């Protein structure tokens, strides 16, 4: 399916959707959003790109296989779960930096957990969809 309208629209939508997914990821701690939804939106951005330009081209702009995102995401999440042990606290306790960081706001270990979830969701969704798309 080659459609000039879809291709042109995707060129602008891809960065916007990725930015939106990142916005969802960051606001997730106190408001609706978070790593899971953010990851889904980010993978939809790539799925849209693959509809417009074909799966091979999307894999080219990703450079790495989406499968490799899964262990990285899992590792980030697990490290943020285990990190409080170093401070003598039970696993999963939220650790927070003292000072807020401009734009992002307060940063804590929960954000890294969400970041891991975000990467795992992108990795899983894209792996499944690309596998199905390339089988045909």
């Amino acid at each position, binding site marked *: 399916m080659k459609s000039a309208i879809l291709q042109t629209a995707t060129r602008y939508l891809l960065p916007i959707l990725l930015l939106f997914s990142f916005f969802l990821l960051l606001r997730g701690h106190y408001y609706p959003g978070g790593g899971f939804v953010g990851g889904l939106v980010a993978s939809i951005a790539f799925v849209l790109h693959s509809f417009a330009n074909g799966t091979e081209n999307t894999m080219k702009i990703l450079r790495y296989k989406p499968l490799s995102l899964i*262990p990285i995401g899992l*590792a980030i999440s697990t490290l943020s779960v*285990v990190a409080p*042990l170093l401070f003598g606290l*039970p*696993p999963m306790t939220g650790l927070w930096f003292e000072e807020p960081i401009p734009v992002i706001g307060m940063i804590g270990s929960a954000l890294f957990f969400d970041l891991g979830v975000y990467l795992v969701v992108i990795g899983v969704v894209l792996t499944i969809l690309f596998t199905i798309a390339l089988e045909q």
Partner: protein
Amino acid sequence: MIDNHILAPIFVQLFTAIAQLMFWRKTLTQRFLSVGGSIISLLVAIRLFSRVQSDGILTMNAANWDAPFGIVFVADTLSVTLVLLTSLAGVAVSIFSSVSLSRQRMLYGYFPIFHFLIMGLYGAFLTGDIFNLYVYFEVIIISSFVLMTLGGRKAQLEGAVKYMAMNILASMFFLTGIGILYGITGSLNMADLALKIQSVQNKTLVGITSCFFIIGFGIKSAVFPLYYWLPSSYHTPPSAVAATFGGLLTKVGIYAMIRVLSLIFIPDDFTKTLLMVIAVLTIVTGAFGALIKSNVRRLFSYLIVCHIGFMVGGIAMFTKVALMGTVFYLIHDIMVKTNMFLIAGLIRQLRGTLDMEKLGGLYRDYPKISLLVAIVLFSLVGIPPLSGFWPKIFLFQNAFSQQQYFFAGALLFGSFITLFVIAKMWSQVFWKNPPQEELIDDRFAPMPPYKKLLMVLPIAFLGAITLYIGLNAEAIVNVTDEISNQLIDNSSYIEAVLGDKTN
């Protein structure tokens, strides 16, 4: 006592799995990581076990939320014993699978999933929150679906569909039970539930809820009449996978049953009678099933069902001695059943088939291996002084003192049938001359010596542990004594979780 490190075995398994995912398709690295990770988690489990022995029940409040509001992890003697046994079985299966599995299965991620499965088992044993227990059950069954279907042969998929359908049904019952329980008490923490359930006025509702739990755990631990998924699915995956399933998965159901019945739904007369009827029928049907099977792994599958009945019967009597018997049998059963399926894998490697009609002559060709196998088989049957003998003493003694003559009879019947089928299997597989000498497909002899060693080593390792359990029964009896004290009088558990807030 609060100890933030009781989840260490879970994290070791999780990091092992993640590291293996990073080395996707590098099967040699994955094998080393798997064996290394299993050994480290065994060491961690031994440390946890000795800490609980010296300091009593340990707890951990996840994310620093106090009980009963947050999720609590509790390491009491029963939990850490099972964690230790799982680690021992994990080491053996991980060594065995690194030499016996085909490279094709490893490429599709056998090892990471195996470690996720072990992680789920640890989690189920250590959690003190009933919903968290459900979540770990899900981790276990999702991993086991993948392990069961990996390879995708037709027979495997057929077994997996039965397995999956029944286990999803079990989860549904379990989850419904949790929902009702939360509705009537407003808590999910097991220690908190134990206190709150006593003040519920509507005892009928509590009874119905307990039935939901018994059905859910009953399907998982394969009791009559919900057992049929087990023999029709456990013979399909490779033996290394079947060893984990046969040794550990049904026992999680038994563990959950013990935990829930000892804390929340203290069995009344109706529950006891119900469980006793189930236990007797499970033993009888499992024994009859084992009698007519000619495939080695199907026979072992029916023996699992038969022996689950012994443990359910012990729970049904719910006295201190009966629980000692149940827990001792659980300890013995995990080690022996895991080993039995590893042996089935070895027989398949030696002869290329598991059909008893076509097998034979193993004692003639491999006398040393046969001797090793004989020790394990004797333990399973319960020849004194090996490990299967001791728990049966407790169960018999209690069956007579409680006048449960049906159970005593079933126990006797089950033991004799086990003896009979194992003797039949021994003579068919090891003593008899193979019917067609030229058809023997020996894939063991051409293997390099280190691979042969690695294939027999796990069986010898588990066999040595079985011997230790049998010959040093006093130590095991002391542990089971402590466990059943904690189970009968659950105040120490509740106090460890909730602190002084009980008053």
